[in-house]
């Protein structure tokens, strides 16, 4: 049997739940919508919060909260064949229970941990590198194109920090975003990508001040481009206003 889900984390957990219920020996694959082949026996599993919660609660009670954290973050890393590898991880966790987290020497567990690390690292890096622009009307807008799907896990940080602002963090690669209206943050689809954004009057001026600050703060005698690139990979540069235009990339 091939289980098909909608691509969300809860959808995936619902598929795992059904697969488990039907007996794992019958599970050939779990895959995302549209990726399945035509010939296998397919079953579409809609995302179901109750099923997902059963699995997460079980993991948390038996193996500790960290196990759930690693599972979620590893899922967000969007690695190839994540579905079956994560299924293996979940099985392993329920088998070993409390001592599961110490089993670092097992390759499957280790790989999942590495994926989770990848997501966690990118999240942390982007918490610093994300840049908001003030739009006409005062809303803050932050476009990004992260490698892992980190926008949903970045949002709580900014809810705490910019609690009295209205803002959007936009993942342009996945066409999703988080919108915050001063009360709660919601995950939204953003199907159409605007090429130009309408920024407020003082936006350009503050951006210019910041770019000037960025240029002066560097000590010319200590210039070290490889070191900078190591910390701030070029893939993020298009969204970082102080390096975007290339005036510092010489």
């Amino acid at each position: 049997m091939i289980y098909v889900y909608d691509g969300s984390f809860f959808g995936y957990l619902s598929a795992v739940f059904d697969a488990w219920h039907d007996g794992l020996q019958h599970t050939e694959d779990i895959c995302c919508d549209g990726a399945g082949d035509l010939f296998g026996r397919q079953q579409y599993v809609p995302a179901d919060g109750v099923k997902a919660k059963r699995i997460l609660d079980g993991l948390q009670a038996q193996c500790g909260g960290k196990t759930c954290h690693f599972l979620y973050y590893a899922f967000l890393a969007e690695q190839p064949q994540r579905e079956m590898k994560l299924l293996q991880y979940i099985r392993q966790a329920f088998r070993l229970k409390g001592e599961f987290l110490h089993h670092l020497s097992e390759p499957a567990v280790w790989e999942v941990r590495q994926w989770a690390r990848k997501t966690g690292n990118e999240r942390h890096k982007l918490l610093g590198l994300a840049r908001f622009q003030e739009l006409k009307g005062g809303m803050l807008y932050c476009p990004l194109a992260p490698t892992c799907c980190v926008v949903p896990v970045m949002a709580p940080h900014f809810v705490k920090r910019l609690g009295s602002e209205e803002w959007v963090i936009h993942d342009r690669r996945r066409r999703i975003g988080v919108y915050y209206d001063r009360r709660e943050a919601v995950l939204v689809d953003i199907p159409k990508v605007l090429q130009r954004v309408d920024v407020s009057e003082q936006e350009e001026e503050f951006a210019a001040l910041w770019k000037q600050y960025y240029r002066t703060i560097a000590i010319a005698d200590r210039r070290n481009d490889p070191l900078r690139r190591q910390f701030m990979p070029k893939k993020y540069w298009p969204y970082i206003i102080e390096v975007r235009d290339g005036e510092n990339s010489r």
Partner: protein
Amino acid sequence: MKWDVMQKKLTILSDAAKYDVSCSSSGSRRENKAGGIGNGAYGGICHTWSADGRCVSLLKILMTNYCIYDCAYCVNRRSHETERAMLSPEEIAELTVEFYRRNYIEGLFLSSGVYRSPDETTELLIRTAKTLREEKNFNGYIHMKGIPGTDPRLIRELGKYVDRMSVNIELPSSAGLKLLAPQKTKENILLPMREIRSGIAERKENRKASRKAPAFVPAGQTTQLIIGATPDSDRTILRLSEALYKQVELKRVYYSAYVPAMTGPNLPALTQPPLLREHRLYQADWLLRYYQFSADEILTDAEPDFDLHLDPKACWALRHPEIFPVEINKASYHMLLRVPGIGVTSARRICAARRSAWLSYDTLRRLGIVLKRAKYFITCRGRFYGESDRPDYIRSRLLDAEQAGRYEPMDLFAGVNS
């Protein structure tokens, strides 16, 4: 806001502040308030990296570069002809909040030249901090300088609003101070430092009585030392740092390779800043803070300066062949930390992983241990994987590895002046 005037002031005052190396935003859990902006991230967040590869997490500027002092090494000294500027507390507060909203920065790092008198300067710093906290309802990170020679009461007042304070020692010995910064003395540097320390200690006491006791410099205090402007040995510097950590309970000591921005009769004629020496000092500083080393272990009377070719931990290991190799499945956490190629993270992972399995050599690689360094100092299930345990042989192999690696010593200078 007058943008062109602001642009100019910002350029002058950030240019004058760039030689201060500290820019961390860690150590504070300050929470946001209703209707306010900002909070502290305990681990700190870097927001950008400048062209020299240094992380920028705070808006680091001087309030003013007017200064009544005449320290030989400083670009802002009174006798140096340079453009001067000053920002008002309101201007600084607005700039900070607007930058913060756009997520450019984690907060403010405000330093200043000594304007008219240390007390007057500190009063202006207090006004800035107060404006930010009370008018702008800003709860992000604020780091401010303690100006040497300030009245302790003012230091106390400032401490109520900021997350971190630092009083820069700059020159690691009294002789150096006398020569290069004649208006500063050891006493007027240590006085504000001690005041901050006792403020922090009192706050800790009060917190025991009530969780709501007002904050006082929650992220602790730091200082900075300039390396290479005076003839002090690395050992003198490292022992000073150790004393500062133990006796004044500093959070961090920063080291700044002396950049010859100024010339003067008492200053050394350097062509390039001693970056590698600075790097070794930072490595040794980490050994003091996280690896349970003492300064006397790292540098001895016989060798008071760092070996520039090899890092201090490897040097220590090579001086102590009687201890190595250690068995990875049995060695204590303390001992694992002393193995070159094993850091805090991998030592913890080893301790966690060996609870469930007897570790093999292959597993070690996966746990993040740098085997090309560690293999000469460990055994795994009783087996030694280095070719030889003779210190001179290991030394040459480690040097080869360092040459081949990305962090070869000359790499640090690559791109300088090019």
